[in-house]
Every structure is written in C-alpha cells, then in structure tokens.
C-alpha cells in the first residue's frame, strides 16, 4: 500500500520551492500512484534549455521501494534509453533509501544529465558515441533537446495546420498527431513513414 500521506507531503514540499529547484511533480490521476515529474535541463550541458518529462509510477511499497521513473521526453544520453526512456541510476534501483524523496530522486536524475556515466550505459549506442566521438554526441544530444525537449507553444490546431501546409491531408495529420500524443515531429515521422 502506498503511503499516500507521505506522497501528499512530498508534493506539497515540492510545489513550495518549485521556483528555486525548477522541479515539478504532478499527479497524473487522482490516485497518486502515477505522477509526472518535470526537470529542466542542466545549464552548461547539451540539455540546457530543454524541459524533460519523467513518468513516475509508485510501487505499493513506496517509500520502502524505489519509485519507477522513465523519461517521457526523448533524451540522447548514455545512461538513458533513447528508445524507452529507461533510466540507469543506482538510487532508483538497489541504492534507494526511504529517506529519499521524489524530489531528491528527480534531482539525482537531473545531476545524471550533467554527468553521464558511459562506463555503465543504459544505451550502448549513445555510450559508444560519447566515448569515441564526443563532439557528435554533444551535437546529437543538443539536437534531440531542441527537437523533443523544447516546449512547443503551438496548439493542436496550429500543428495540424503546419502539417497540412506540408502537404498532408488534414484528417490524416490530425489522426497522426493524436496517435503520437500531440508531438508534431513524431507525427511528421509517422506520416512520412506511413
């Protein structure tokens, strides 16, 4: 059984200093078992300027078991799967401690963005690129940040309009956007491939 009193308190404390930390945690539904965390990309890294969404699922044993965290935003990072967003971080696994909180865990994830550990990779391709061609890695990571982690100010209608201007039928563009959750780049990929 999740300790909801503690989760409530964590959410309160997190929202109290969201200006200072930039880290937000918000429940996805009203049962507090599934939440969304948001961290800003660390300054001075290829992830600077991006805003990264992290899906959080609390296990029944929380806080005695670690929360399950996964990037919802695509990230190019040796310790984060470029496909699934899975995070390779010890405190989210065997080094979890009940004294840690969602906020401290997200802070650790943010720190992981600025200090990759290619020796213990989650994504072998990214780790190899990091080790062999660092400049390319930085370029790719920056491109992914620009592409996926910059919040688009466009609404759904504008995105549909944009895709229509590219030459796609409106109904197709709309369904493609819906199927990928509103991401115009993913929708464009889908439209091009399909």
């Amino acid at each position: 059984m999740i300790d909801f009193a503690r989760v409530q308190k964590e959410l309160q404390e997190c929202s109290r200093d969201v200006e200072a930390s930039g880290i937000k945690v918000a429940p996805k539904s009203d049962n507090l078992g599934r939440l969304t965390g948001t961290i800003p990309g660390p300054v001075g890294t290829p992830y600077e300027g991006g805003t990264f969404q992290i899906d959080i699922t609390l296990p029944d044993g929380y806080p005695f078991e670690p929360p399950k965290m996964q990037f919802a935003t695509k990230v190019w990072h040796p310790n984060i799967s470029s496909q699934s967003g899975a995070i390779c971080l010890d405190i989210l696994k065997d080094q979890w401690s009940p004294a840690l909180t969602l906020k401290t865990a997200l802070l650790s994830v943010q720190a992981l963005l600025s200090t990759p550990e290619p020796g213990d990779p989650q994504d072998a391709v990214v780790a190899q690129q990091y080790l062999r061609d660092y400049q390319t890695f930085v370029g790719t990571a920056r491109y992914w940040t620009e592409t996926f982690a910059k919040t688009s100010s466009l609404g759904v209608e504008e995105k549909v309009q944009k895709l229509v201007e590219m030459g796609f039928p409106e109904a197709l563009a709309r369904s493609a956007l819906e199927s990928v959750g509103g991401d115009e780049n993913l929708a464009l990929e889908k439209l091009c491939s399909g």
Partner: protein
Amino acid sequence: MASGSINVSIPSIPRDFGKKKRANRSAKLKQCKLDARREQWLSQGAVKNKGCKEELMGPRVSPQQIHEEERKNALENLQMRRRGVGVGVGEDGNGNGNENGSIHHDFDLDSPLNSPTGSSVLGGNESGTNFSASSSSSTTSGSSVGGSITEEDGEENDNCLDDWEAMADALAANDDDNKLENHFDENNPCLELQSSLEYEPTVQLDCNLPNLGFQNENLTQERKVPPRVTPGNSRAWRPDDALRPQSLPNLPKQRSFKNIDRHYGQGVLPWGCASGVNVPTSCPICTEDLDLTDTSFLPCSCGFQVCLFCHKKMLELDGRCPNCRELYKNDPVKVETSVRRGSLTLRLARSCSMRS
C-alpha cells in the same frame, strides 16, 4: 480612582493589549493575583536586597533619590533610567489606586528595604499623591502604564505575556539607541515591558519613588551582569532564573519557539537538528507524528530517527539506516527506550550500548 487610572492608561498601550485588558478587567480575581504577585516579588527582592544593601545601596541611592524628589513635578526630559524607575513606581502607584488594602503593606515592605536614609517613606507617599494627580489630570502617565501592565502580568493570559516578551525582545534587538535602560532590564519584567512603550509619545513619568528601580538596579549589580554587552538576550525572564517571580506563567514563549524549531527539524536533514531541543516531531519516512517512545528511540548512531513501525519495516527489508546506509545494530531498542529525556542523555545511552 483605580478604574480611572486604568482607563487613562489604555490609550498609551498598544491596541490589542488594551482590548484584552478591557475584557478581563471586570474579574476581581486578578487583583488578588496582582497583590500576591507583588508581595512575592517584593519579598524576593527583600531577600536579595538585605544581603547587598550596605555595600551597594549607599553611594548611589541617596543622590539620585534627592534628584528625583527635586524634579518630581517635571514631566519632561526624563531619561531612560528614570523611566525605568517610574515604571517600577507605577506598580506602587497602582497599588495605591486599587485600594485593596495592600498599600500599607507594600510600603512597609519597600521602605526599610530600599531607603537607608528613611526618607523614602515620605517619597512613597508623595509618589502616591503624584500619581493620583497625574491620572486625574488625564495625562497618560508612565505610572499608570506600568501599573496596568503589571496587572496583565499578574493575570492568567499566557498569550498576552508571550506577546509582550516577544515584542520587547524584538524592539530591543533593533534598538541601539536605548542602551541606557539596560541597567534595568535584567530582573524586572516591568522594565522589559517598558522598552516596548518607549516610542509612545505620551509616556511620561511623574512618579518619582525610586524604590523599585533601585532595588532592581541593585539586583543587577549583584549578579554582575554587564548590562551593555547583551542587549538582546537579557530582556526576558529565563525559566531557570532564580529571581523570576513564581507567579509568572511558565513556558509560554519557550513553547512557541520550540515549535518553530521542530518545524525546521522535520526537513530533509533531520539529523542536522538532532542535538539539543530540536528533535524531529514526525517520522521522516512515513510523516506520522513521533510519540514519546519514538522520539526517545535512536536506532542508528548517525542520529537519524524513525518511528518504530518504519524501523521494523526496514529491518525486514535490508536492515540499513535510510540516512547513512549502515546496518542497524542488533536490538538497540531496549537501551534507548529506557531513556526518556533529552538527546544528550540519549546519546550517552547509545554509546553505552555500543560499548557493552
């Protein structure tokens, strides 16, 4: 006359205190308490004063007392220290005004104590007349201020006293200009209250019986507290102060500040505050409030406290302290729960258990 003088005093007191005052004034009980308190206070002063009267009273009292009597009708240009005297006097003046039979008793106590020359009996009577004159002429005299404040003290309302003390402390901390009155603030609650009234434009002191002020001054000297070094800390009564009137309510202020401390103690670093008073009030794991058994339970030498339920759960999982990740030692419970008071004691008990 008593009610008249109190009414006059109200405008010079901050508003909420005046309200509280008005709400409680009708209670006759407070007068009894006030009298009891005054007698207690004076007799405590008597015990102290008798010891040091000869060596401390002589040179200082007489000239100033003469000085006071010369200028007792001049309401302006009063210095801080004389304000302090006036407040002390105000208590007596109010006692006179209350007409509850304690007048003569007060002066009987005061006179032999504080006047080696014997002239203060006269001074006392004169101050009484002075007081009545000033209050009937509807000036807000310092004496009536002091008197009504003292009544507040004697009453039961802890919050009111708490506010007074906090306010006096705050003012003293910000106030560098009023160092003179530090002569008086050590032992006299009236004088610390006085500091909160310093900026009232109408506070005037026309009652010049210096008895209580000198008594207080002597006590300060006797305790050899340097008056100017600690302007902020010397304001309020400490609960362990031997001279503290017993009729003052216990621990109103300490309790309120302790709660604040505890609030900080609950943060991410409860261990940082684990020394002294600042024991976390809720379990950092489950956020439930810690009861007495929990607060005296120190499972790990790093000082990280958890409730017994969470401790049991962590023993079932990996048996490591969530803070330092050290393995919990076997059976710390017996030793720790036998100790109930203060983290210092707890710590000693802890080290004993580690040695054995």
